[in-house]
């Protein structure tokens, strides 16, 4: 058994071999664009944090972009998504405006939640993102409840929930797995296994070595995939969503990935080596997709053009956020109850 909880394992060594149908080139380029956008937004947020413009706990998903983009493409806008405090990539992948995203992290009035939620509470109901969560694993039963609602109403919507490797051992995961399996809920459990929970490698606390095998104990269909290859992610999620829509119940996807930046802005990263990061950089999602695109006939200039476009968009978004007003003080007291 490959110990896929080890940070020495590359995402490409994932155990489940899926038949991956190549996606059309323009679709892949679109994906590249979004992944690059996420990367640049995250980097600009890290920079802003360093400059003292962002408070609180800010977690970026640098190195994990393919998970968000592949999954977003494999679901419908009216499907339901929940994710963690590390959720910028999911919001952007589903179509959140980068300006609103950055403004929210900076606590500005133009943020999607008027600056009240901040980095850990990304939400965008219009694009199906029903909430990120600051409490590990809490968002998982939420998605199950959305799946239950879809089932009760006879809709063919699916719920998709993202969580980390560290979340697996919150008790509520277990409760949710059981109910989802028992009631055949239309839900996809998506584990972004970046091998760390905060500063603790998951191998130190997990009794299970191949996390994806665990949910099989409930009879849940499960696979382990390369989370840094957007086509693989797309294929896996598309399969899982199809099963869910067909009434065949939940699927669990363990996506091997790696976070290239710290757990949060300011992380000293004393818990891992430069060698380990260098190893994982060999299979980071942007590079994987870039190579794929070039192999399939995309021209380097096309990709440069996309990047340049994104660069501009991100600069504009940052400027928009920084120039946005602070929320009115009165906002501190609203939204406690819906009136």
């Amino acid at each position, binding site marked *: 058994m490959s110990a896929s909880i080890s940070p020495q394992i590359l995402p490409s060594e994932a155990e489940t071999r899926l038949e991956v149908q190549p996606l059309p080139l323009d679709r892949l380029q679109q994906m590249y664009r979004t992944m690059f956008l996420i990367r640049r937004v995250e980097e600009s947020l890290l920079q802003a944090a360093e400059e003292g413009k962002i408070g609180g706990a800010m977690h970026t998903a640098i190195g994990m972009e393919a998970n968000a983009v592949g999954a977003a493409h494999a679901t419908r806008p009216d499907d*339901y998504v*929940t994710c963690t405090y590390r959720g910028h990539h999911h919001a952007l992948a589903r179509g959140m405006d980068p300006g609103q995203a950055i403004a929210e992290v900076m606590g500005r009035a133009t*943020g*999607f*939640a*008027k*600056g*009240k*939620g901040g980095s850990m*509470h990304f*939400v*965008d*109901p219009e694009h199906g993102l*029903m*909430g990120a*969560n600051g*409490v590990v694993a*809490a968002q*998982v*039963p*939420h*998605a*199950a*409840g*959305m*799946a*239950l*609602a*879809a*089932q*009760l109403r006879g809709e063919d919507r699916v*719920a998709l929930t993202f969580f980390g490797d560290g979340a697996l051992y919150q*008790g*509520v995961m277990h*409760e*949710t797995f*059981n*109910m989802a399996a*028992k009631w055949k809920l239309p839900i996809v459990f998506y584990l972004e296994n970046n091998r760390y929970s905060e500063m603790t490698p998951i191998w130190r606390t997990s009794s299970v070595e191949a996390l994806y095998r665990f949910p099989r104990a409930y009879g849940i269909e499960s696979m382990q995939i390369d989370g840094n290859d957007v086509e693989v992610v797309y294929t896996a999620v598309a399969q899982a969503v199809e099963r869910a829509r067909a009434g065949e119940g939940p699927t669990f996807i363990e996506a091997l990935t790696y976070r290239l930046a710290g757990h949060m802005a300011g992380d000293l990263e004393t818990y891992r080596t430069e060698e380990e990061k260098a190893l994982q950089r060999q299979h980071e999602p942007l590079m994987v997709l870039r190579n794929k695109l070039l192999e399939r006939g995309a021209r380097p200039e096309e990709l440069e053009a996309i990047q340049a476009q994104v660069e501009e968009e991100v600069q504009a978004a940052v400027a928009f956020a920084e120039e946005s007003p602070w929320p009115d003080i009165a906002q501190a007291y*609203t*939204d*406690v*109850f*819906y009136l």
Partner: protein
Amino acid sequence: MTAPVMAQAAPEAAVQMRKTTYIQAVNEALREEMRRDESVFILGEDVAHYGGLFRVTRGLLDEFGPQRVIDTPISEQGFMGMALGAAAVGMRPVVELMYMDFTLVAADQIFNQIAKYHYMTGGLIHLPIVVRGQQGGGKRYGSQHSQCVEGLYAHFPGIRVVVPATPYDAKGLLKSAIRDDNPVVFLEHKMLYFTRGEAPPAEVEYTVPIGLADVKRTGQDLTLVTYGYCLLQALEAADALAARYGIQVEVVDLRTVNPMDTDTIWESVAKTGRLLAVHESYANCGVGAEVVARAYEEAPHLLRAPARRLGMAPVSIPVSKPLEDEILPWKQQIMAAVLEMMRA
């Protein structure tokens, strides 16, 4: 006891009232709201086939089927979280906790999630959820099955806290709770279930608005603010005090602990000059302390004597009958507190 006056919500004056039990009232409210609105559904342990450990959801499975009355595993965190998810996308879950003590098992989902969701999302999502179940002592269930939890719920913002004492109020308030677009905790008391009271017949539409207290007994000597099962104890105590000592206690039934209808309290205190808040949940950092604190913030000039509160002593709840009797802030304790205040 008269039905409270609420023109817009109360049934036609001409309606013939009938006697019914508290359990029946809660059951009817659930049934009628489920008929009225397809998005209402019930989640909990033993709620479907058995009809609830206390038989409150009896018959609902037959009428509404297993999709809308769901027997869950013993997974309070999980199904509470699922209620959040379902509510976020437009359903109206009513979650039964078998004993409200298990609030603590699902506390993260209730207080860190459900209570905060509307605020954290900047108002983008709201959650029409009712959490309901029975609480309280008097039946020797001991430490982990007897706690009253309204003080805990009221400490956190974002959840309306409803604690009705009569079948009339229970039915009317549960209907309001289910129709409310916010999280509401609806607290029943195990000693109330078989009590009876007047209410309009089933299917005669009325609601009792959340956030409105009701003066259940008038008097000019002291204002006693309470709710839930303590109301019945307070009314008994008030009658005994009147009979034995000629003390006339005005009893204000708060009915809702959050929001708190302080207007009605101050109106009463303006008359009596004395204020005593009574409840069965813990006194320490509790609802009574809150009533006292607000009295000195908002209406200190009305008080002719120090305002007081009476709640559960800071002990775990014992099983043994004389010990449980000793600590419950019921009739005897209420009478003693009133007498002490009247003598001071």
